């Protein structure tokens, strides 16, 4: 049976009782029956590893997939800054409610109240869990956990492990996962890429995956499938994501009926290192914490030729301090990024490609001395020198905005189930709790909370109805069809024999998207982008070159599949941005701004999540709207002036 149309399944009751109400009424699976139920979890980042380990501990049989050579390399590993939790260890007035409100406001009132509240509610347990696993979070001298504040909130609720919070949290989850591998409750499939989702009688029953070391196409059946495949910001080509990050898993599920929600909402991070040349493959993030002591500026004169240290104060424009006197250099990410772009577009960018702005520590160095600055940011200054060869103690850093986080993703209900029965999406892969803009340190949290604390309940509630269903037969004709389609697709890439590599297509697509569906969007630009993307997609079909064959290690073939999907996702992103005639969070439409250039939200007409449905024509998706109902909080104007 098809699922009821966009049923959010938000439980009854007051906000703070919803999750406990849900848990009290959720169906359970008898421990004896659990071992008969198989679950596929695609992805071993924080969301996938935590889910797979927790489900295996409960007694389910889990198959865990990732494309890297070990689960520990999922891109969660790269998160630097920290993870939020409403522990209120600082006694500074933090609470679950405050954290919920900050998240909702940070997301510009474009997320679901009940989900966002649950995220804050489960946050404290995550810290307990991580500590028990041996995650070495920062400590005070007395031995208690240390906190700091992060991005646009007034309390200190961020826990961190040096500049490697994601790595340490992931190692905790990974070790938990490997413990279940040892217990033979999890079977691990590394260097496997999911190529398709298989539905039988409208329920998710398995996947087709390719062994990337042998090229073999495999069938895997289960009683339910969980996608924990991370973000797809890599679609912009230059981004802070890893080279292998992709939209393929969720996109292929989308083509089987899972709705994609708010795909155009992408967070562009303000403090990444700028592109240094056309060969550049990725952009490295510099922690946002630098903005605590660094001042951002550009020269007033666009023809400025002097070195930064030779430019006197009166010829510099500290534009964030000028435009946002109360938040200054600490303005939220979307605002800081947009302001940088404005300067760069006005020809005031610095560096050889005029694509960056200065982040200057000279005042802080004078005020606190080099030792203090070194203590605070030493590893970041070292990293900066490694990559650029420049010593930032002597001259300002050059930074620029970079695509970073996908707020959009697969639409899910309160149970994290997509619009396909038995298909769940967790972590950055779903459209999540962050609304139109994610607050710093909230997404590690979301990935963990989804996997450790929510999915084990909601998936059990689903599986309770599947106990009598026998093991999925991978000889079923739906598997035949899906496998044949996958093989055909790979064959098509190999036999096109054109002249342009997948990477070249990707670079072109990325630039188009960044220019027209990035920090700032307009009707005209988006329409043009759609036209160009369609052309590019057409060219891809006739002019792609992939050497080698499918029955072997072939990274060019892997890339081709990812880029083919990106070429379709990109169009949906533009369509999504085009239908939203308002500005909210990271989505800034030039036509909808206040007199002084700030985002103008339109709650009357756009207080909904756009859930797109595949129609077989990538240019003509169906729009379904999930109205956002604010029962407990009144949306306000988000101002940081």
């Amino acid at each position, binding site marked *: 049976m098809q699922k009821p149309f966009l049923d959010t399944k938000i439980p009854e009751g007051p906000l703070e009782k919803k999750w406990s109400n849900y848990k009290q009424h959720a169906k359970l699976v008898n421990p004896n029956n659990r071992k008969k139920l198989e679950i596929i979890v695609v992805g071993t980042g924080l969301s996938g590893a935590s889910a797979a380990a927790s489900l295996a501990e409960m007694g389910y049989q889990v198959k865990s997939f990732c494309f*890297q*050579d070990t689960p520990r390399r999922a891109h969660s590993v*790269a998160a630097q800054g920290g993870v939020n939790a409403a*522990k209120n260890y600082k006694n500074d007035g933090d609470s679950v409610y405050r954290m919920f409100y900050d998240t909702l406001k940070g997301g510009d009132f474009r997320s679901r109240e009940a989900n966002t509240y649950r995220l804050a509610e489960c946050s404290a347990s995550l810290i307990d869990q991580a500590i028990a696993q041996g995650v070495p979070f920062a400590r005070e001298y007395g031995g208690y956990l240390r906190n700091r504040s992060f991005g646009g909130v007034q309390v200190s609720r961020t826990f961190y492990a040096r500049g490697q919070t994601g790595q340490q949290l992931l190692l905790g989850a990974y*070790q938990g996962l490997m*413990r279940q591998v040892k217990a033979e409750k999890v079977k691990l499939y590394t260097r496997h890429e999911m190529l398709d989702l298989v539905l039988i009688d409208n329920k998710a029953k398995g996947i087709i995956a390719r062994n990337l070391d042998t090229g073999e196409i495999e069938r895997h059946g289960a009683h339910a499938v969980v996608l924990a495949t991370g973000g797809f910001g890599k679609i912009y080509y230059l981004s802070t994501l890893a080279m292998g990050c992709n939209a393929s898993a969720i996109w292929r599920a989308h083509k089987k009926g899972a709705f994609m929600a708010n795909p155009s909402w992408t967070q562009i991070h303000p403090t990444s290192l700028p592109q*240094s040349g056309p060969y550049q493959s990725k952009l490295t993030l510099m922690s946002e914490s630098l903005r605590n002591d660094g001042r951002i500026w550009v020269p007033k004169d666009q023809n400025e030729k002097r070195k930064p240290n030779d430019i006197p104060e009166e010829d510099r424009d500290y534009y964030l301090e000028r435009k946002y006197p109360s938040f200054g250099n600490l303005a939220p990410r979307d605002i800081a990024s947009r302001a940088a772009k404005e300067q760069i577009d006005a020809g005031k960018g610095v560096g050889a490609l005029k694509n960056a702005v200065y982040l200057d520590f000279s005042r802080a160095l004078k005020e606190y001395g080099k030792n203090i600055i070194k203590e605070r940011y030493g590893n970041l200054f070292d990293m900066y020198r490694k990559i650029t060869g420049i010593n930032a103690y002597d001259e300002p850093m050059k930074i620029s905005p970079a695509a970073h986080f996908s707020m959009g993703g697969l639409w899910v209900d309160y149970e994290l189930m997509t619009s396909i029965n038995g298909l769940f999406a967790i972590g950055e892969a779903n459209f999540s709790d962050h609304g139109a803009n994610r607050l710093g340190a909230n997404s590690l949290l979301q990935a963990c909370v989804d996997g450790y604390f929510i999915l084990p309940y909601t998936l059990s509630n689903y599986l309770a109805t599947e106990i009598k269903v026998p093991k999925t037969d991978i000889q079923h004709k739906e598997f035949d069809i899906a496998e044949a389609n996958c093989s055909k697709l790979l064959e098509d890439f190999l036999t096109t024999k054109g002249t342009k*590599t997948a990477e070249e297509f990707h670079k072109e697509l990325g630039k188009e998207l960044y220019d027209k569906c990035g920090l700032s969007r307009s009707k005209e630009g988006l329409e043009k982008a759609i036209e160009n993307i369609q052309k590019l997609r057409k060219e891809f079909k006739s002019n792609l070159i992939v050497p080698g064959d499918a029955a072997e290690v072939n990274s060019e073939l892997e890339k081709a599949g990812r880029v083919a999907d990106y070429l379709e996702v990109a169009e949906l992103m533009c369509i999504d941005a085009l239908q939203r005639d308002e500005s909210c969070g990271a989505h800034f439409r030039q036509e909808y701004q206040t007199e002084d250039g700030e985002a103008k939200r339109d709650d009357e007409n756009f207080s909904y999540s756009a859930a797109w449905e595949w129609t077989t024509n990538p240019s003509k998706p169906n729009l379904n709207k999930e109205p956002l109902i604010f029962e407990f909080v009144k949306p306000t104007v988000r101002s940081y002036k």
Partner: protein
Amino acid sequence: MKIYLKIWRQKDNLSKGSFKDYTVEDVNKDMSFLEMLDTLNLKLVKQGERPVEFDHDCREGICGQCGVMINGIAHGPLKNTTTCQLHMRSFKDGDTIYIEPFKAEAFPIVRDLKVDRSSLDRIITSGGFVSVDTGQAPEANSIPITYEEAEAAFDAAACIGCGACVASCKNSSAALFTGAKITHLELLPQGQKETHKRVAEMVEQMEKEGFGHCSNTEACQVECPENISVLNIARMNFEYNKSKLLVKK
């Protein structure tokens, strides 16, 4: 600048490999080492040739997926730097660079510069964890851990699992990798309870995988991108001996 490359090409673990010569003309000093290889691969693919397969993902020195021998040194000439974080400014115009995979019996070659390091995963699987289920954890602040203890545990926990230590060791020993995990967990009260069981199982697994014995040359720490200390190996040996004694009793 112009760079001459001698790159190890090998179709799979069963085939014989050899060095092949390549030249990359338009190398920029700000390019990363892997971007230099991308540039070469772009040229190869356009000519219809098979590109050089190499491992990489995050390209920011944290995932541990990249790693090749560059002129005989794991991750190349810069200290505490992964292959992906090495930039071409470390070389000069006209240089010849030898590039080979991390070689060890326990790291079979997959293709070209790609190797299979799942043996490291199996060492973790044998005991590199704290046995705690989701939901069992007590309140986080209930067990204070001093700043120094947490920092010391972190120093060991920083290992990125790249395998450079194994590739740099003349015995192909995984002692640094294994010692680091044992130390990380043993320094924290949450992990201490299981130390003896853990150390026995992990050391046994390490041997099963075909890693060699540590003979204290300390080459591993020199090439380790995270500067993991050889003192971790000493701690592992100490705990291992203790565990054997305790078992005998």
